[in-house]
């Protein structure tokens, strides 16, 4: 069995374990009696899924002998890893296990799409991507996507909080504060990723900024998160309004990944689908 095949097997295993995590987290969200116990089980599953997916991503890198984010499939599985990683990292320091469903669900969806629609066999890179900047630019983007996903999950909870009866979900202010902190962490990394992309574009295409659809949407995402960070310090804009801005920003990330890669032709056409 090759490293590539083993990687695929591990991705499928991750999907199975994440399904279990999703179920236990969902039960915890609705039932307050055993919530803590179920949350802990869900988190254990999530850790397991994270570990196996990490191995899958590394194996994928080994089988293609390069950073494992050269096409949309690889980008999707690595992003999924980053989402889980960001959530687990925060959960080590803060009590956020109530967030489980809202983090596991997007990474599960992403993995599902990766294996069904986006799948590409491992192979070497097209010349345009062969540059040290690939590692810097794309890894920064993926890390910030992970953190922005946690911000998204928290913002969803801010908006849903009043409407549904969730057990163990803290007050809006607390969610809001945590969401702000994750965005605070992600925003500079995203900024860095855009700058690194511009430097690479200058080297590869002869211009640092050309309003290529991918660039444009990265810029739009940046603007909306900038607005979000400003909203937090503006009177009367925290809470639901801020959460709505955060959601809009996340939609722009998702569109940049799926919409721009699959529907719009531009210079960033490396989907390999």
């Amino acid at each position, binding site marked *: 069995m090759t490293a590539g095949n083993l990687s695929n097997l591990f991705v499928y295993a991750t999907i199975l374990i994440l399904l279990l995590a999703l179920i236990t987290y969902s039960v915890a969200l609705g039932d307050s009696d055993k919530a803590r116990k179920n949350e802990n089980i869900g988190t254990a599953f999530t850790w397991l899924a994270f570990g196996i997916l990490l191995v899958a991503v590394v194996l994928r890198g080994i089988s293609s002998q390069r950073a494992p984010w050269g096409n949309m499939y690889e980008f999707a599985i690595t992003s999924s890893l980053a989402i889980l990683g960001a959530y687990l990292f925060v959960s080590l320091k803060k009590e956020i296990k109530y967030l489980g469903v809202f983090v596991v669900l997007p990474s599960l969806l992403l993995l599902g799409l990766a294996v069904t629609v986006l799948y590409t066999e491992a192979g070497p890179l097209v*010349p345009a991507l062969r540059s040290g900047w690939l590692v810097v630019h794309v890894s920064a983007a993926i890390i910030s996507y992970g953190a922005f996903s946690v911000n998204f999950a928290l913002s969803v909870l801010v908006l849903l909080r009043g409407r549904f009866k969730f057990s163990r979900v803290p007050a809006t202010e607390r969610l809001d504060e945590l969401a702000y902190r994750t965005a605070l962490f992600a925003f500079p990394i995203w900024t860095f990723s855009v700058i690194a992309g511009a430097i690479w574009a200058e080297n590869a295409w002869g211009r640092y900024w050309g309003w*290529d659809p991918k660039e444009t949407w990265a810029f739009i995402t940046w603007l909306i998160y900038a*607005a979000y960070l400003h909203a937090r310090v503006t009177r009367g804009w925290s809470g639901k309004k801020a959460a709505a801005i955060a959601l809009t920003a996340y939609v722009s990330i998702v569109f940049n990944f799926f919409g721009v890669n699959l529907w719009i032709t531009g210079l960033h056409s490396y989907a390999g689908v």
Partner: protein
Amino acid sequence: MTENNIQIKLGFSGWLRWIWRQLTSMTTALWLLLLLGLAAIPGSILPQRSASLIRVNDFKEANPTLFEIYDQLGLFEVYGSFWFSAIYILLMISLAGCIVPRIKIHAKNLTEPIQEAPINLVNQTGYQAIETSLDLAKINKLAQKNWWRTKISADGNSLTIEKGYLRESGNLLFHIAILFITIAVAFGALFNYRGTILLIEKDEFANTVTQYDDFRAGGLFRVERMPNFSFVLEDFEVEFERGPNQTGSPREFIAELAVTEPGLDYQQTVVVNKPLVIDGTKAFLTGHGYAPVIKVTDDTGRVVFDKAVPFLPQDANFTSNGVVKIPDANEQIGLLGLFLPTGVLDEELGPISIFPDQDNPLAFFSAWTGDLGMDSGIPQNVYRLETENLEQIGLAQLAPGDRWELENGYQVEFVSVKRFASFQIAYDPGRIWAFIGSILAMAGLMFGLFVTRRRIWLRLEGIGSSQNKIGLAGLTKQSEEQLSRDLTWLVKKIRESEQR
């Protein structure tokens, strides 16, 4: 009545001031940020002239009426349109109006003495009292040594220490850098030039405006500023994936150039991601294709055409289209060609290429005669043959080396196949400034977001024979964790110096 009075008092300058205050408010900045994002969207969906004129023309042909409306709105040049510019200029004004007063305040905060501690610290954040042999003057020195700004009160009974001014400095630096980047981009756009060239193997390019296929320059660009150089495309190598995975994906493009600068000749290899750099001008390898060599002789045996003709690739397997126009012969001849590097005849799709390299080079030609319209003075697209007024006089499939006799006695020979490479050549004096601006923005962002501005107060609460009782408490608007770390740190430092 009072309202009337206020209205009168507002007056013209009052209104200006009101507008200014609205424009520079955070809420306005917020809306402008979101609005700018919204305004950027159409440019990512509709084809843009700056990126691809061809795709804009395709849109025009497909939807003529819609094109007119969109064009009036500037939707094909979104990022140069008045409304897009208006939003970002307003945003920049709002930004400047916001940070200028903040710079003044920050400068004042940095130069003015800091405030004295409140009388009672007990109700303040993190209050604790310690017994120590140190007095406030010693603690003051301790703090100063560790980069705190300090102030002992006039009566000598309290001490204030402050840190984290870098937060506001970083914040301001970030916003100034954003303004700076915007100016650098505008500056670059005024003086820059960029163009594309298509170079067949062994052909030479000299850096003059006329040699470009497509040339754009900023409003203040001067031709004299173009560096004097030329290069010959000595060799162009391409390699494609032949394995079962991603078959046909490009694996290697290597262009070997013989470059000539005044008083200097050298060889240079140019690959994707590694441009040729001469005096701030960069030449990037952006694409490639095939140029079949075609030789045409007329009915008397005279050679009327013998040249490599670039055929433009239409798909990933380099199914390519090209045109040959021969206006000078006795009879004007035009050839419409289709070149397939690895040609097959598909039952449904007709002749197509199934691999991008030359495994089975094939060409299909149709020959046309009549008035090519090249003497009419109207500029013509060299990649297009308008066949409406022409008469077709033949159709043939040729492999390299094949000859084809037309019914009028002309002979077309498909001699061989050369490769061509396309280059983008660009110069932008603003880019280095935009780069410096980005580095400053990044640095400002890190300080502005992650430095905590905090203040610690110490007050002498009792004097013993050998021990003083000192109360400590602090204040911060940001991270209370940082503040409590600092309080712990300070107490530890005090204990350490006691032992010395």
